[in-house]
């Protein structure tokens, strides 16, 4: 009886999520019709795509910068806490890093805008001067630091504690048995980590990274505050580019009710949805490929 109720509740919770999501999808699709269809002109898909693709790329660039910067640091920090720090201190150190997660995005936005951006201006100048031949550092170096790279760094700082926290929990769970097996074979600490800890934590690391990526893709306020949105450009050091959530947040308040602009903004919300979908599918696929060898046996 208890079992029935409990498993029923568990199932219900899962289904509730599906239903909510279905409603979100319906809400998004229903309200974005205006972006791709106009009564006079019929389908205007092309026009919409021209509007959407720079935003898609901008979103991906920002998230990619964030991931590339945050993942190695986060895994390093998690390892530091789980395997390198003095055991007595590891809890407090973990807490210190969690503080980063405690900082709301508005504050990150304010920090990125008033501190980080200006601090990066000379760096951009330097990069442009010495590496300007690489398209990434071409263009006019920003005088305000409000670039997609700054946004990426802020996002990186924001997702760092998320990835760290997930990785740390998993690293700590690595069975002592396996760690000792590696050590007893004469492995150094690092070799033990590659032999026992990483394989065990693989799925967890990917999971944490995806969680961070989800956050980075969907982060609104911080990006809106630190970026000078503009045209799509390959340059990371000049103003330009924009991300989907920032575009929505910046555009929605003034979008007239029922207008094409409003529909357009909701439609790119839907596009972001699809991007997350694809990103996550890829992650699942990577995790599942090695299911047989999962650490939880």
């Amino acid at each position: 009886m208890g079992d029935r109720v409990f498993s029923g509740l568990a199932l219900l919770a899962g289904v509730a999520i599906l239903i909510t999501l279905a409603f979100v999808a319906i809400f998004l699709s229903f309200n974005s019709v205006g972006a791709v269809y106009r009564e006079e002109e019929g389908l205007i898909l092309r026009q919409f795509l021209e509007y959407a693709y720079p935003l898609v790329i901008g979103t991906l660039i920002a998230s990619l910068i964030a991931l590339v910067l945050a993942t190695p640091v986060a895994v390093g920090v998690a390892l530091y806490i789980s395997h390198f720090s003095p055991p007595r201190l590891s809890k407090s150190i973990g807490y210190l890093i969690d503080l980063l997660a405690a900082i709301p995005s508005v504050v990150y936005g304010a920090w990125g805008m008033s501190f980080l951006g200006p601090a990066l201006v000379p760096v951009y100048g330097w990069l442009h001067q010495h590496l300007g031949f690489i398209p990434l550092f071409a263009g006019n170096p920003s005088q305000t630091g409000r670039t997609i790279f700054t946004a990426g760094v802020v996002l990186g700082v924001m997702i760092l504690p998320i990835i760290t926290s997930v990785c740390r929990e998993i690293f700590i769970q690595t069975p002592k048995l396996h760690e000792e097996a590696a050590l007893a074979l004469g492995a150094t600490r690092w070799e033990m980590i590659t032999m026992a800890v990483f394989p065990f934590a693989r799925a967890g690391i990917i999971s944490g990274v995806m969680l961070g990526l989800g956050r980075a893709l969907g982060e609104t306020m911080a990006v809106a505050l630190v970026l000078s949105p503009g045209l799509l450009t390959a340059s990371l050091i000049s103003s330009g580019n924009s991300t989907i959530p920032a575009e929505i947040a910046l555009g929605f308040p003034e979008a007239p009710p029922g207008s094409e602009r409003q529909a357009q903004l909701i439609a790119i919300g839907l596009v972001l949805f699809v991007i997350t979908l694809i990103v996550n599918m890829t992650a699942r696929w990577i995790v599942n490929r090695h299911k047989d060898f999962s650490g939880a046996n």
Partner: protein
Amino acid sequence: MSKSITAKDLNVYYGDFLAVEGVNIEIAARSVTAFIGPSGCGKTTFLRSLNRMHEVLPGARVEGQLLLDDDDIYGPGVDPVTVRSMVGMVFQRPNPFPTMSIRDNVLAGYRLNGARMSKSQADGIVEGALRGANLWNEVKDRLDKPGSGLSGGQQQRLCIARTVAVKPEVILMDEPCSALDPISTLAIEDLISELQKEYTIVIVTHNMQQAARVSQKTAFFNIAGTGKPGKMIEYAETSTIFNNPTNQQTERYVSGKFG
């Protein structure tokens, strides 16, 4: 190859708790030494201090001297990694790497040396080690399957194969056969006699017959009560320990034996 082990006044601690006290022992190279004694007397603890695995646990530490031939492995500047690659270990519970295939499990330690090897060389090592551990026939068709899919006994034999594959100088075994059936046990015991020709072997066992069968010398450990430290009571030729022990505690313990 193969080295002797000498412990001088070795105390082993878990934080403040003294688990094993004042062990003095000399283990000859190319011999098999058995540790026996009741549960909790510190056999595992002492064994783990022989290849510095003990210090892996937080707060765990060792006092005294432990010489491998003439080098104090606890001396200043000695790298535990070097110690452990010379002193291999098989654990009480089988612990194959769950994310590796059977083949990779066997090669795990060997690969650490970074030596490049051809596939056929690797195959040779894998087959040799698995045959030695009497596991080859059971797993030869599924070398690429995960090691965790094996039964307990099979897993333990896999772990033995893995340790042997590295060819250390000393092999420590903590109740390596406690999860094995007699046939596998026999094979392992044969393997031990085989290895003995080249390596120094220390084995913890609860099976006194096993101790009698495989070892030349036996150390008996005992503990006076909970919270008290374990001590080495007697260390002598195996036949002496079992047939003619000097110490009364040893006498009482071995005469409680079965069969």
